[in-house]
């Protein structure tokens, strides 16, 4: 009898890949799925469940389903991808200096005069002439 392709393994692995690569271009755009990446963890969980089902039937019914070897390899790869994701979002993105040196509430904001994207000089004094407040967003830059 022709053994059937074990689609669960491949579908599970595909979802695990999506769980990893979808964070930056999609889920990180929305604070609700960015700060705690629950949507990505959920996708990992779904992919893992499909892989578990696929592996189970590959080993329990080897006469009907293929995928003992490919399913095992895909499962190991999936675990590595999950580990990479977890290490990135729980450790690597937290490697920034402590905030202890930062200015705090009720301190004077140091005045500045910097060049904007069009090459024009912009000063904090000038901005505060036209506005009742400023939100200064410091960011790492894209170099």
């Amino acid at each position: 009898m022709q053994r059937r392709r074990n689609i669960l393994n491949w579908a599970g692995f595909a979802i695990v890949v999506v769980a990893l690569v979808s964070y930056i271009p999609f889920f990180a755009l929305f604070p609700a799925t960015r700060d705690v990446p629950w949507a990505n963890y959920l996708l990992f969980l779904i992919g893992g469940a499909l892989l578990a089902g696929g592996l189970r039937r590959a080993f329990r019914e080897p006469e009907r389903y293929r995928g003992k070897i490919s399913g095992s390899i895909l499962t190991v790869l999936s675990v590595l991808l999950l580990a990479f994701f977890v290490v990135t979002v729980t450790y690597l993105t937290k490697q920034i200096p402590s905030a202890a040196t930062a200015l705090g509430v009720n301190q004077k904001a140091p005045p500045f005069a910097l060049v904007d994207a069009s090459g024009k000089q912009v000063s904090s004094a000038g901005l505060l002439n036209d506005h009742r407040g400023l939100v200064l967003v410091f960011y790492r830059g894209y170099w």
Partner: protein
Amino acid sequence: MRGFEQHLNEFHQRGVEVVAISVDSPAESRQLCQSRGYTFPFLSDPKADTIRQYGVLHADGSPDGKNIARPAEFLVDASGTIRWVNLTDDIRVRARPESVLAAIDRL
């Protein structure tokens, strides 16, 4: 940044301007603003002088070892006093514009 751009009208209605500051050159900021559609000012602090004065320097923070800014948001009032600060411990997790707007409304 995306969130601030989406809520920019609400900041302007309150008379508050949003200003982004990094070590990026004006050319890099221009490219960023064009590709992402940002319309508020992006200021260039190439030597990180202002970044250092606000205490948010990330020394050797870029992959090629340049001094850069750590992510941080400050609300400055008309008298030049800092009234609200957000200092994340994770570069993924930035201030939500809604919480800055709420801080403005409490001034």
